[in-house]
């Protein structure tokens, strides 16, 4: 019995090691959205290109879509832009854009220059909808299912790797659901 007690520190060290090891490689700046499993907050926003047109939550229902939060002041958004074009044109996944806290003219020029991967671009100049959505920095990319429910959020650049390992399997999964 006495001898067994001697192993207590070793066991403690191993447990602590396992716990700490599990944390390695996790990026603490990537937060899970508080809205996972909840409907997208109510919104009514103008289209960027055509401010006479208004969209509400119906836009995000009916099919599995990505909602990409971007802005011209965001360098990472530029980096992921070509990947978004690939996703919408080549892989056939609709991407809704949310132009977040941005200048309209700059945003239009950006889409002219780099191409437009979005089926619809919503304009959120004051970031009100972004705030309700819990956006804390662009770019952010949300997977929205047919019911208009938030299923996943990726913070940061959508790289080919993120697409392959995370977004595509999720989209498949929710496309196959019911």
């Amino acid at each position, binding site marked *: 019995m006495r001898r067994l007690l001697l192993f207590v520190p070793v066991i403690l060290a191993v447990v602590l090691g396992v716990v700490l090891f599990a944390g390695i490689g996790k990026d*603490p700046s990537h*937060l*899970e959205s*508080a809205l996972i499993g909840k409907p997208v907050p109510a919104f009514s926003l103008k289209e960027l290109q055509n401010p006479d047109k208004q969209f509400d939550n119906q836009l995000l229902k009916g099919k599995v879509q990505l909602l990409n939060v971007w802005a011209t002041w965001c360098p990472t958004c530029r980096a992921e832009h070509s990947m978004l074009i690939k996703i919408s044109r080549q892989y056939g996944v609709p991407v809704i854009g949310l132009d977040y806290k941005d200048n309209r003219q700059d945003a239009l020029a950006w889409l002219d220059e780099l191409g437009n991967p979005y089926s619809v671009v919503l304009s959120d100049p004051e*970031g009100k909808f972004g*705030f309700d959505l*819990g956006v*804390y*920095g662009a770019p952010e990319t949300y997977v929205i299912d047919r019911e208009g429910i938030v299923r996943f959020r990726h913070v940061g650049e959508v790289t080919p790797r993120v697409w392959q390992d995370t977004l595509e399997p999720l989209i498949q999964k929710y496309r196959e659901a019911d």
Partner: protein
Amino acid sequence: MIRAVILFVLIGCVQYAFATVNDVYPFDSDADRERFQTLTEELRCPKCQNQDIADSEAPIASDMRAEVYRMIRAGADNETIVDSLVARFGEFVRFKPRVEKRTLVLWATAPLVILIGVLMIAVMVIRSRRYSEHATALTPEQRERAERLLREHDAR
């Protein structure tokens, strides 16, 4: 002289820092101002993660401050304000996590470790006391032998 100048500039900066917070968000009462101060210091900025939103320069922190301000002006109580931000940004924004199943380990660990430590010290103290009682008490035979040995030593 230079020291005095630096000191002056620094004091100026401090006042400027305090002034900005108060000027941007004017309140009707001191109680509301105090609530604003406390709430913004208890909420964590999701972008610059270990700063509170009162302290952070991130755009999202300033949006959160504006929302806290708006809700205080609208007469919301502290709980409603914090809950509304948690609903958007997650439990992460609480510097002090709620006690629930998921955070139980977090809350329980510190008191548990202290308790274990206190118990260990108590056991050690009791044991050593017992040991020393036994050790100092020599039997009459032992005492006699010890005295004999000492005498022999002195004789040599």
